[in-house]
């Protein structure tokens, strides 16, 4: 809502404050002032001039030579505007004037003839082109005849006005009118309010003789008032009204249209003027549209209506889409002489639906949607009649033909001073409350600390105690509330064990060299099905998509963090950031239904992606490129730090390199995978060799024990034996290690691979793997015999199970 301060001054006195201070007060006590701007920059030395003569320039076809009387002198001015004519009153920038844009007016010679100033258009005076009335849009502005010669134009054209832009929350639609803003300002400044005049002279002739009103949709249209005005003379609205409309962001058209717009802004009540001669009948029938019925609206668009749209008809066909837009056929034009003026209450949801269906959000629909003040509907009609009588010469017929089922009652809300103080933490007195209610212009009855408040109908937002609590608090001033801390029991806050574990894992991975990402949960339908971990693929039935996505890119809920994470990797590669090491802890969404009827299961996953160099230390010739074992090492270390035993099993996972991927298990539970992205998919994502992991973190949360038990520090020495064995190259280290652990018995505390070799000195298809075995008994020193016998058992086992030979 744009509020012209000059206009506002008609209702409340605000001159005691600077616009900035006023804006600050309004913001602090109720409505956010989002902007404070001059309507135009004021022009000095620009006055009203009378064009005494206007002749063609002797040396230029398109220029005119004018003698312009500016009061104390007559200036010779050359003017190129096409609409200049003798007898006009125009805005003259005298030599020495400075126009917006620091445009200085000087005496000049144009094609050999002297010119002492400039005749201005509104644009040249700083008015935005889109607000300038059409007839002056491509030429100079012409004042009404009564403009005083020599008068300063700043005031006449309202150029010194300041426009306050209000950001209205949905509950404060009362401030969608100048009067609403005036009530607000009156309450804040504690000043009286002056209401506009609505009295006008009526003819004997009654409206009923010309028109009747029938409402067939009372729920959607509880009130419809029809005024009839004859002898209307279409012309320009008075200058002050045009100025206010322009300041409020509306382009003036003609007196009838401008007056309905003016009253709309003044009262917050939309009105509609029909050309009664083109109305097509003498009855106004308001009903729901028939399915498929057509209406050509003011913007010359044909609209196909449905039974959910409320229409004004002439008994035969629609003439207006109620509360949204009038019909083209009955539009007020230059020829209009009889006006049927509609002042009605249309129900918000109905108007909202129509405005939405036809994408026709307007000043009118916006106000109906939010609910207009029942007590201002007819008043606004009367105000328009008064103005039409005054400024369009209209004869107003007696009465208003109306249909009325509107609820005009004020809601009563009871408040108690003590409860207000309990809720606010204040010490407000009964008198303070009474004073606040008086400032708000709310009627009330007081009985000690009990106030029965009659919420005025302009404030539809006030319904319950808490609404009044807010009114009292904001007028009392939030700045005046004390600072306290909750008096309730000193409860200890904290993280749950699971939340702590999440933080631990994050810090662990960060310490291991990974950077945390936050990627989008919504991905493309295609990506959503990529790199899905086998246990997720098994649990899900379908991916979940939005009903109406903004774009295909973000249309489907992720089933893995990896696709969007890989997009981020590619984003970096494209910007020459070739070393990337990521992790993310976030939800995926698993639906177990073919067609979604319930919320999908949200599972927390821990994913990572690494590419490029892991370690570069050139001058010592050290360089490690990310490979499977870098990523596996991080994952292993994580699980070790969580004291969880995880096994890696060679596996095939969609989208992953078939030879370089391991599935992870804790016991029999599949919990994710680690490996290299399939080279083909790498190519699709524009990646280099990239290694990823994806782990079911919810499962880890569910099994993790937070308190590790104490294990004694061994007091007896350990014995190390190395063993190098030769096996077929297909035998996996993990299998050998399992066999060694099993055969070696309890004394084997740790087994580490320290060499893997294939090539010279070994038969084709064979490889050698060397392990270090650590033997220990916490209770005593081991004997050579014990170690030897375990060692032999190990040799026998690997020989039997894996055809292994001791490497000679």
């Amino acid at each position, binding site marked *: 809502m744009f509020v012209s301060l000059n206009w506002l001054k008609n209702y409340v006195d605000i001159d005691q404050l600077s616009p900035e201070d006023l804006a600050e007060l309004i913001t602090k006590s109720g409505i956010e002032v989002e902007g404070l701007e001059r309507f135009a920059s004021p022009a000095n030395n620009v006055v009203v001039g009378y064009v005494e003569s206007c002749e063609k320039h002797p040396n230029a076809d398109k220029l005119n030579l004018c003698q312009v009387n500016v009061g104390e002198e007559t200036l010779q001015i050359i003017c190129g505007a096409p609409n200049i004519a003798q007898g006009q009153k125009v805005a003259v920038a005298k030599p020495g004037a400075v126009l917006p844009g620091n445009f200085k007016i000087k005496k000049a010679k144009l094609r050999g003839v002297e010119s002492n100033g400039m005749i201005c258009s509104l644009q040249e005076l700083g008015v935005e082109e889109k607000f300038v009335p059409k007839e002056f849009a491509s030429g100079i502005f012409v004042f009404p005849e009564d403009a005083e010669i020599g008068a300063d134009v700043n005031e006449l054209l309202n150029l010194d006005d300041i426009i306050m832009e209000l950001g209205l929350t949905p509950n404060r639609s009362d401030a969608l009118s100048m009067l609403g803003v005036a009530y607000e300002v009156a309450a804040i400044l504690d000043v009286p309010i002056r209401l506009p005049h609505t009295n006008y002279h009526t003819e004997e002739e009654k409206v009923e003789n010309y028109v009747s009103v029938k409402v067939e949709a009372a729920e959607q249209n509880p009130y419809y008032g029809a005024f009839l005005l004859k002898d209307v003379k279409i012309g320009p609205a008075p200058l002050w009204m045009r100025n206010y409309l322009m300041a409020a962001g509306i382009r003036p058209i003609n007196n009838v249209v401008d007056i309905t717009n003016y009253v709309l802004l003044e009262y917050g009540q939309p009105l509609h003027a029909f050309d009664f001669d083109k109305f097509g009948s003498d009855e106004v029938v308001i009903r729901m549209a028939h399915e498929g019925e057509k209406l050509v609206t003011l913007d010359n668009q044909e609209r196909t209506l449905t039974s959910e749209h409320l229409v004004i008809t002439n008994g035969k066909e629609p003439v207006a889409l109620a509360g949204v837009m009038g019909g083209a056929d009955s539009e007020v034009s230059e020829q209009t002489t009889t006006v049927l003026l509609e002042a009605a209450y249309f129900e918000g949801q109905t108007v909202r639906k129509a405005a939405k269906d036809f994408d026709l959000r307007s000043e009118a629909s916006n106000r109906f949607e939010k609910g207009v003040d029942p007590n201002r509907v007819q008043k606004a009609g009367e105000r328009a009649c008064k103005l039409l009588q005054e400024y369009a010469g209209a004869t107003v017929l007696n009465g208003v033909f109306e249909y009325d089922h509107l609820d005009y009652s004020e809601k009563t809300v009871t408040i108690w001073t003590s409860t207000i103080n309990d809720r606010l933490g204040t010490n407000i007195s009964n008198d303070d409350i009474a004073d606040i209610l008086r400032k708000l212009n709310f009627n009330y009855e007081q009985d000690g600390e009990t106030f029965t408040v009659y919420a005025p109908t302009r404030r539809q937002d006030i319904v319950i105690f808490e609404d009044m609590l807010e009114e009292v608090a904001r007028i009392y001033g939030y700045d005046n509330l*004390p*600072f*306290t801390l*909750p008096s309730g029991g000193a409860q200890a806050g904290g*993280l749950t064990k699971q939340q702590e574990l999440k933080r631990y894992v994050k810090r662990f991975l960060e310490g291991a060299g990974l950077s*945390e990402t936050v990627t989008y949960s919504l991905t493309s339908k295609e990506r959503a099905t990529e790199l899905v971990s086998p246990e997720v693929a098994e649990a899900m039935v379908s991916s979940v998509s939005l009903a109406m996505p903004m774009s295909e890119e973000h249309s489907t809920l992720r089933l893995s963090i990896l696709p969007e994470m890989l997009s981020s990797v590619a984003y970096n590669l494209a910007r020459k950031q070739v070393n990337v090491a990521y992790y993310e802890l976030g939800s995926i969404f698993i639906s177990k239904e073919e067609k979604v009827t319930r919320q999908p299961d949200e599972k927390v996953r821990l994913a990572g992606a690494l590419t490029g160099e892991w370690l570069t230390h050139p001058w010592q010739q050290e360089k490690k490129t990310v490979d499977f074992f870098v990523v596996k090492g991080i994952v292993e270390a994580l699980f070790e730090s969580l004291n969880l035993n995880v096994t890696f099993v060679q596996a095939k996972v969609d989208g992953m390199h078939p030879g370089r991927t391991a599935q992870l298990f804790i016991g029999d539970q599949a919990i994710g995978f680690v490996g290299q992205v399939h080279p083909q998919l790498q190519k699709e994502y524009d990646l280099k060799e990239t290694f990823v992991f994806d782990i079911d973190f919810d499962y880890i949360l569910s099994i993790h024990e937070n308190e590790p038990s104490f294990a004694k520090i061994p007091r007896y020495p350990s014995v190390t034996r190395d063993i190098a064995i030769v096996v077929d190259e297909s035998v996996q280290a993990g299998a050998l290690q399992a066999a060694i652990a099993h055969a070696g018995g309890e004394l084997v505390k740790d087994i580490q691979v320290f060499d893997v070799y294939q090539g010279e000195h070994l038969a084709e298809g064979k490889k050698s793997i060397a392990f270090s075995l650590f033997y220990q008994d916490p209770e005593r020193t081991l004997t050579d015999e014990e170690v030897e016998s375990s060692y032999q058992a190990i040799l026998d086992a690997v020989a039997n199970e894996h055809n292994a030979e001791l490497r000679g």
Partner: protein
Amino acid sequence: MKEQLQALEKEALEKVDDATSLKELQDVRVAYLGKKGPITEVLRGMGKLSKEERPVIGELANKVRGNIADAIDSKKASIEAAELEKQLEEETIDVTLPGRPVPTGGPHLLTSIVEEIEDLFIGMGFEVSEGPEVETDYYNFEALNLPKGHPARDMQDSFYITEEILMRTHTSPVQARTMNAMEDKRPVKMICPGKVYRRDTDDATHSHQFTQIEGLYVDKNVRMSDLKGVLDRFAKQMFGQEREIRLRPSFFPFTEPSVEMDISCKVCNGEGCSVCKQTGWIEILGAGMVHPRVLEMAGYDPKVYSGFAFGMGPERIAMLKYGVDDIRHFYTNDMRFLKQYHQA
């Protein structure tokens, strides 16, 4: 013999003096003090001496031996010192060469902000709650006093999956869920960080996915001044002790009264500048007293209980605190952006 011994001593001491390595020194030791050395040889000939001469020569021989041994030891020490020095000299490195790098990572800026805020409210007795990102229409809207058709639903155009299921548009549903789940209707004091989603086209100031932190405190006798006190403490800890807060009326369907909280602008200290659009204040969060309908729907009697709630955007806070100029930075995961916030 006496002369012989003295000559030997002189000769040996000269050789000790000339020795340049431990090996040479050892050779001298063997040559003069060994069992086959000349001194032993001299002593062997002592039998020929008179009784009177014997002890004199014996003493002299021992003295000569002692002198040579001492000279050797002292020479050994000095050679060892020289050799150590030489070794250390050889081992000297250029300490200005770069060290071996350690892979380093760190948290995302949003996580840092969220954890900082979590810890701050934990310090004031709050717990951390979480809720689903895919919500029901009931919890996302209806339980928050936003019935179907409510105009305020326009404020947050939503991503629906079905008519009843949608991507949550705020973390506020966790309020309702937490209160509903509380079977004995105990006081609730929690904050809830999480991802939220709105139908926005991604640009410098909009993101279809962003983060929110919701706070809720419901108890007997919760006052609006408590909200002001808690928010003031939050603002001072998060943005600096010099910051002032102010509350302005606003509107949220799930709180009444509703306010917006501003902090005094850090750049201009409230004087007005381009960052605060000349107002001296910067909007940080929305808050209010929990609407009685919301309490009622969650099974808390609004005559007995009252509460406050607040909600803020970590992206906005990060943008203010660190001057991040484009919200998309939080989601493109450019390593150059991420690394900036890994330092302590």
